[in-house]
């Protein structure tokens, strides 16, 4: 890979970071091929040096909720004064889903809000509608997922009551990265389970 390519990739990363887009550093390094280490040092040094951009209000609200043990997406939705039904309706209409499937869309939205579904499994099309409905950026919706499994949380940091009794094994299974889409999945399943390109 020529020098100009490493420089170009670094400049692309830097510009995206400065615009608050939270670029995927590992993906950039992969694109640099056998000069990935060189690019990694540049990006690493840049992140050690740079003054980060000011966060969006939506992102602050989500982090505050997560830190308090609440569901970040629910906090964001409430901060926008949007009911869950309105989110479901926006998805059904925006994605051209049959009205008869509304209940299943509602179930997936619940799983997403409850941290039972890793947002990285969700189609970009879903995230775009969600972001528009919640007046947020798609990357804000991707920022948080279920906390890693581990010992029971200390009382002060337990999540919201509706999440505290979730079986951790079930949570880990549901939050796992997408496998190849099973043939029995229909359009609604693929939108919420098959990954960003669905």
């Amino acid at each position, binding site marked *: 890979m020529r020098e100009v390519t490493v*420089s170009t990739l*670094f400049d692309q990363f830097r510009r995206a*970071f400065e615009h*608050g887009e*939270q*670029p*995927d*550093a*590992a*993906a950039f*390094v*992969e694109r640099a091929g056998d000069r990935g280490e*060189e690019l*990694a*040092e*540049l*990006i*690493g*040094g*840049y*992140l*050690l*040096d*740079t*003054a*980060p*951009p*000011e*966060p969006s209000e939506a*992102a*602050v609200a989500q*982090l*505050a909720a*997560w*830190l308090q043990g609440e569901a970040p997406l629910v906090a964001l939705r409430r901060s926008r004064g949007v009911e869950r039904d309105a989110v479901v309706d926006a998805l059904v209409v925006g994605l051209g889903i049959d009205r008869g499937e509304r209940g299943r869309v509602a179930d997936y939205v619940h799983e997403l809000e409850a941290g039972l579904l890793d947002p990285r499994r969700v189609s970009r099309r879903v995230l775009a509608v969600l972001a528009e409905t919640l007046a947020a950026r798609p990357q804000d919706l991707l*920022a*948080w*997922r279920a*906390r*890693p*499994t*581990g*010992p*029971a*949380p*200390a009382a002060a*940091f337990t999540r919201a009551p509706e999440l505290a009794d979730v079986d951790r094994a079930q949570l880990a299974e549901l939050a796992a*990265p997408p496998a190849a889409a099973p043939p029995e999945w229909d359009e609604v399943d693929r939108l919420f389970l098959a990954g960003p390109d669905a």
Partner: protein
Amino acid sequence: VSDRERSQAEDVRLLANRDHARLLEKYRPVVHGLATIQLRADLRHQADDIAQNVLLRLWRELEAGKRYCDRDGRVVPFGAVVRLVTSWLVKDFLQKRDRAEPVPGLDDEPGADGIDELVARLDLAAAIDQLPGRAAAVCRLALLEDVPAPEIARRLGITVNNVYQRLHQGTKALVEILEAYA
């Protein structure tokens, strides 16, 4: 007033106002990026976990009233604390993975991984003095004096990219030195 100075002044203001969520959200992309760059694509999920662990740890400490000072009582810039804690946790994760030891989860008791002990005896200035030549100069200017990379490059007569590379390498070495620091 440079972006850097504005940013640091904002950190001080947020700390004084105890607006810890905003302060940590500001640094979340840095934390996530550093964890990702050190663990790479095949450990992307672990990088996410480490980033969230850093934020939760620092939030708990800030909420408990912790201030980050070196052994002489000088306040360490919050940006430097965030970056060092991230590097420590990444290194801790990699060491535990290599030894097949369990990695502390988000809800483990603070101190279980010894990072608190490291932060408590944080002495950046002494550690930086142990770095070789240019790396020490770059880290001193960037981490202690908060000088932006272009200005460091101008003062040292090197390229900005060279500053980034030395800062990246120097910080990894700093983590090793601080760990061994009695």
